[in-house]
C-alpha cells in the first residue's frame, strides 16, 4: 500500500468559511447551555465580524489558491465574501426581535445561518465544479430548513417543501451537467476545463461540452431566480420567515452570482463566449421583463419584493453578459447595492410583522411614512434606489451594468433593461404612494426597535452615499 501523502494545507485560503464553521459548531453546543437566544445571536454576529476581519490582511494581495486548487482567494472573492457577511449580519439583526415576536426563536437558527453563510463564502471562492456543487447543496439544505423555520405555520412549510423539491430537481440538472462536462473534458476543475477546451479546439463545440455547460447554467440559474427557472421565488419568499426571505434575496443571490461569475470567467474558453453571451442575454431580457411585469400585479409586499428580486437578477445578469472587466465591476457594484437595498426593504416588512398578524398588503403601509418618519424615509429611499432613480446606488448600478452591456454590443439588452426599469418604477412608486399619499384609519402597529431604526438609517445613508462614492467602491475590485 502506498503511503498516502496528505498535502500541506493552506488553511488561510478558506479562512472565513472556516471561522464560521467552527464558530457555528461551537454555538450549537453553547446553545444547549444558554437560555437567552439573544446571546447566541450576538455571538453569531461576533463570528461574522471575525470572519470578515480575517480577510482583511489578504485584501489587495496576490490571489492564492489552496486544497489542490479547489478554492482560490482573490480580491473579487474577498469583496463578495464581505458582502455576504454584511448581508448575513443584517439578517441576524433583523431576526433577533422578529423571531421572538413570532414565537419561533430557537437557538439552532443562528448556527444554521452561519453554516449556510459559510457555504456561500465557499461558493464565492470555489474553483472546482464539485466544490461549487457541494456548496450549493449545502447552502440549499440550510435554506430549506430556514424557510421552514416558522413551522408549523403551513405557509412556512409549504415554502420549504416547494423550495426543496424544486431545488433538488434543479440539482439533478446541475450534477448531470457536471457529469457531461466531466465526460467532455475529463476534469471538473474550472481552470482545468478552460485548459482542456483551449487545448483541443474541437472540444469547445463538442455537444457534450455545450449541453453540459447549458445544464450547469440552468442549475445555477434557478438559485439566482433567472426566468424561467424563477418560479419558486415568490412562493418561497412569501412563506419563509421574513428575515429568511431577506437573506435569500440578498445573500443567496450574491452567492449564486458569485459562483456563476467564477464559472463563466474561468472555465469559459474565448471560443464559447459569444454563444454563452447570447444565451445569457436572452435569459437576462426574459428575467427583466417577466420579473417586472409580474411584480406590477402584486398586492403583497413580500411577493412584490420577490418578483422584484427576480427582476434584479436580470439586471445583474446584464453585467455578466458583458464579459468584460467593466462588466464585472458593474456586476459586483450592483450586487452590493442590491443586497443592501433589498435587506433594507425587507427590514421594513419585518417591522410590520407580529405573531398572528401579517401585514404584507400594500394597503397596510398607508400613512406609514408619516407615522414612522425614519422608517418611511428609509423605505422610500430603498424603493427609489431599486427603481434606479439617481443619485441613489441603484441608479449607478444600473448605469454601470447597461454601459457594460452596450460596450459588449448588447444595446438592445440595455434598452430592454431601461424600459423594464420604467415598469419597475411603477410598483416601487406604489409603495411610496401608500406610505405617503394615502391615509389609513386602521394602521397596523409597527415593531421597529431602536436597533432596527439605526440599521435602516445606516443602510439608507449607505444607499445614498454609495452612489456618490461610486469610484472608490468600484476600486475595491480592480480591473483585471
Amino acid at each position, binding site marked *: 500500500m502506498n503511503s498516502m501523502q496528505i498535502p500541506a494545507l493552506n488553511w488561510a485560503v478558506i479562512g472565513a468559511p472556516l471561522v464560521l464553521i467552527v464558530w457555528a459548531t461551537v454555538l450549537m453546543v453553547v446553545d444547549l447551555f444558554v437560555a437567552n437566544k439573544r446571546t447566541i445571536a450576538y455571538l453569531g454576529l461576533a463570528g461574522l465580524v471575525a470572519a470578515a476581519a480575517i480577510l482583511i490582511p489578504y485584501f489587495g494581495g496576490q490571489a492564492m489558491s489552496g486544497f489542490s486548487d479547489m478554492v482560490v482567494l482573490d480580491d473579487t472573492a474577498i469583496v463578495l465574501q464581505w458582502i455576504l457577511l454584511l448581508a448575513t449580519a443584517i439578517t441576524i439583526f433583523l431576526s433577533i426581535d422578529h423571531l421572538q415576536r413570532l414565537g419561533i426563536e430557537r437557538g439552532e437558527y443562528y448556527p444554521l445561518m452561519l453554516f449556510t453563510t459559510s457555504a456561500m463564502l465557499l461558493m464565492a471562492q470555489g474553483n472546482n465544479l464539485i466544490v461549487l456543487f457541494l456548496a450549493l447543496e449545502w447552502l440549499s439544505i440550510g435554506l430549506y430548513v430556514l424557510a421552514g423555520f416558522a413551522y408549523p405555520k403551513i405557509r412556512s412549510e409549504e415554502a420549504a417543501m416547494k423550495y426543496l423539491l424544486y431545488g433538488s430537481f434543479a440539482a439533478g440538472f446541475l450534477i448531470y451537467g457536471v457529469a457531461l462536462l466531466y465526460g467532455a473534458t475529463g476534469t471538473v476543475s474550472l481552470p482545468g476545463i478552460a485548459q482542456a477546451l483551449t487545448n483541443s479546439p474541437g472540444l469547445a463545440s463538442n455537444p457534450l461540452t455545450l449541453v453540459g455547460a447549458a445544464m450547469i447554467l440552468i442549475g445555477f440559474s434557478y438559485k439566482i431566480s433567472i426566468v424561467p427557472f424563477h418560479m419558486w421565488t415568490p412562493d418561497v419568499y412569501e412563506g419563509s420567515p421574513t428575515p429568511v426571505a431577506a437573506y435569500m434575496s440578498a445573500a443567496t443571490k450574491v452567492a449564486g452570482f458569485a459562483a456563476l461569475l467564477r464559472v463563466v470567467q474561468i472555465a469559459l474558453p474565448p471560443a464559447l463566449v459569444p454563444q454563452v453571451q447570447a444565451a445569457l442575454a436572452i435569459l437576462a431580457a426574459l428575467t427583466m421583463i417577466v420579473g417586472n411585469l409580474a411584480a406590477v400585479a402584486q398586492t403583497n409586499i413580500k411577493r412584490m419584493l420577490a418578483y422584484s428580486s427576480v427582476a434584479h437578477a436580470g439586471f445583474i445578469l446584464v453585467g455578466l453578459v458583458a464579459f468584460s472587466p467593466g462588466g464585472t465591476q458593474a456586476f459586483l457594484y450592483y450586487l452590493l447595492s442590491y443586497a443592501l437595498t433589498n435587506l433594507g426593504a425587507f427590514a421594513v416588512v419585518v417591522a410590520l410583522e407580529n405573531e398572528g398578524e401579517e401585514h404584507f398588503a400594500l394597503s397596510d403601509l398607508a400613512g406609514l411614512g408619516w407615522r414612522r418618519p425614519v422608517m418611511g424615509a428609509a423605505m422610500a429611499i430603498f424603493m427609489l434606489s431599486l427603481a434606479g432613480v439617481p443619485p441613489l446606488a441603484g441608479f449607478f448600478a444600473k448605469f454601470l451594468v447597461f454601459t457594460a452591456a452596450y460596450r459588449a454590443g448588447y444595446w438592445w439588452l440595455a434598452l430592454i433593461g431601461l424600459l423594464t426599469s420604467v415598469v419597475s418604477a411603477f410598483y416601487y*412608486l406604489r409603495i411610496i404612494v401608500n406610505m405617503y399619499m394615502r391615509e389609513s384609519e386602521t394602521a397596523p402597529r409597527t415593531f421597529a426597535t431602536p436597533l432596527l431604526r439605526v440599521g435602516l438609517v445606516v443602510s439608507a445613508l449607505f444607499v445614498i452615499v454609495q452612489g456618490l462614492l461610486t469610484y472608490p467602491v468600484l476600486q475595491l475590485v480592480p480591473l483585471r
Partner: protein
Amino acid sequence: MTSLPILSLILWLPLVGALLMLVPLPARTAKIVALLASLAVFVVSLLLIPGIGLFNSHTAGLQLTETMAWIPSFGINYRLGIDGISLWLVMLTTFLTPLTILSTFESVSTRVRAFEAFMLMLETGMLGVFLAQDLFLFYIFWEFTLVPMYFLIGIWGGQRRIYATVKFFLYTFTGSVFMLLAIIVLGVVYGRSTSGQVNFDLQAVTKAIQANGLGLSQTTLRWLFLAFFAAFAIKVPMWPFHSWLPDAHTEAPTAGSVILAGVMLKLGAYGFLRFNLPLFPEATHFFAPAIGVLAVIGIIYGALVAFPQKDIKKLVAYSSVSHMGFVVLGIFALTPEGVHGAILQMVNHGLSTGALFLIVGFIYERRHTRDIEAFGGLWKVMPVYSFLSLVIILSSLGLPGLNGFVGEATIMFGTMKSAVLGWPFAAFGLTGVILAAVYLLWMFRKVMMGDVNQNTAAMRDVTRTELAILIPLIVLIIGIGLYASPFFRTMDPSIEALVGPGSKLVANR
C-alpha cells in the same frame, strides 16, 4: 477671476436649506428658514449678472467652469459651467423659487417642513440640470428633479393626485431612459474613437462629434437624436406627448404648479439646445421640419383644448402646451433670432405662467374650487387682484409691451427667416396668438368680469404676501417687455456659436 466656486455654491445652497428642514422647527419658522435659504441662493446668483457680476457676455463658451474628477474609470466628472444659453434659466430658477416658497406661507399648512424641503431639493435638481456640463451628471440631475416633484404632487395635491403624480413620474421617466441609453452610447463611442476610455464630458463629446460624427453612421446619429428628443419632448411637453401635463398641473399644489410650469418644462427645451442641436447637426436639420410641425400642432391644439376647460388650472396647463410649442418652434427654426426668442420665451413663460398659476392658487385658497363657473365679478370685489391678473394674462397672450410678445415675436422672426421652416410655420404658429387671446380673455371674462355671485361676494383682495409675490413678477414682465436687449445681448455669443454663420448647423445646410 475669482476662485470662488460660485456655481457650486448656487447649486448646493438649496440642498443645505433642505437639510435644515430635518431640524424640527415650528411650521412658521421652517417657512422663514426656507425662504431665507432660497433668497440666499438668489442673492448669490445675482453675482452672475452680466456687467456687474461675474458673467462675461462677450464669450460664447462656458464660463465659471468647475471640474472635479468623480468616476475617472468611466470618464465621469463633476463639471459645472454656464453660458449665455443657461444664464437666464438659472436666474429664472433662483428668482422663482423664493417667490414660490413665499406663496406657501399662506397656502401650505400641513407637513410644512417636508414641503419646503422638497421645494429646495427641487431647486438644486433644476439648477443642476442647467449647470451640469457632463452628460452623466446632467442625467442625474435631470432624473432627480422628478423625485421632489413626485412627492409635492402626490402628498399635497388635489383629488386625483396619485394618478397624476404617478403618471407624471412614469411618463417622464420613460422618455428619460431613452436618453440615458443615448448618453451611454455617446460616452462609450467617444471613448472608443479616442483614448479607449469612456468619457461623458459634454464639451469633448460635442467637439468630437462635430468633427467626425464619432464615426457613427448617419442613421445611428439620427436614432440618438430621437432618443434625446424623446426625453425632452415629453418634458416640454410637445404634442402628442403632453397628456401628463394637464393632470400634473391640475392636481399639484400651487407652488408645485408654479415650479412645474415655471422651470421644469424649460428643462426639456433647454435640453434641445444643449444636446440635440450641437450634438446632432445633421439629424437636427433632417428632423427640424417634422418637429416644427409638431410644435405648430401643439400651439394650435393646446389653445383649442384650453378653451373649453372648466378647471382654470387645466386651462392654464393646456396654455403651456401651446406656449411651449412656440419655444420649440423657435429652437428648431435654427436661426439666431429663433433661438434668442426661444430662450427668452422660456423665461417669459416661466414668469407669466408661473404667475398665472399663482393667481389661480390665490383664489383657490379663498374658495377651494377651480371651477371657472364658480367665479365672476372679481374685478368688482378684488380690483387689485384683477388688475394684476389682467397684466399677467396679457403677458401670457403676447401683448406687445409685455414680455410674452418680445419672445414670441422674436421666435416668429426666426421661424420666418428659417431655411428649414419658413412662412407656413410662422403663419400657423401665429394663429396660436389669436387663439391665446380667445381662451385667456374668455377665462378673464368668466372669472373677473360679470357680476359678483354669492360665492365671490365676500372674497377679499390680495394680501400683502400675495402682493409681495406678484409685484416682482409684474415688474419683470413689464421690464422685459419694454427693454429686452440686455437679456438678448448676453445670449448672443453663445447662440451665434450654436446657430450663427460658421456653426456646424449652418454649414450643413
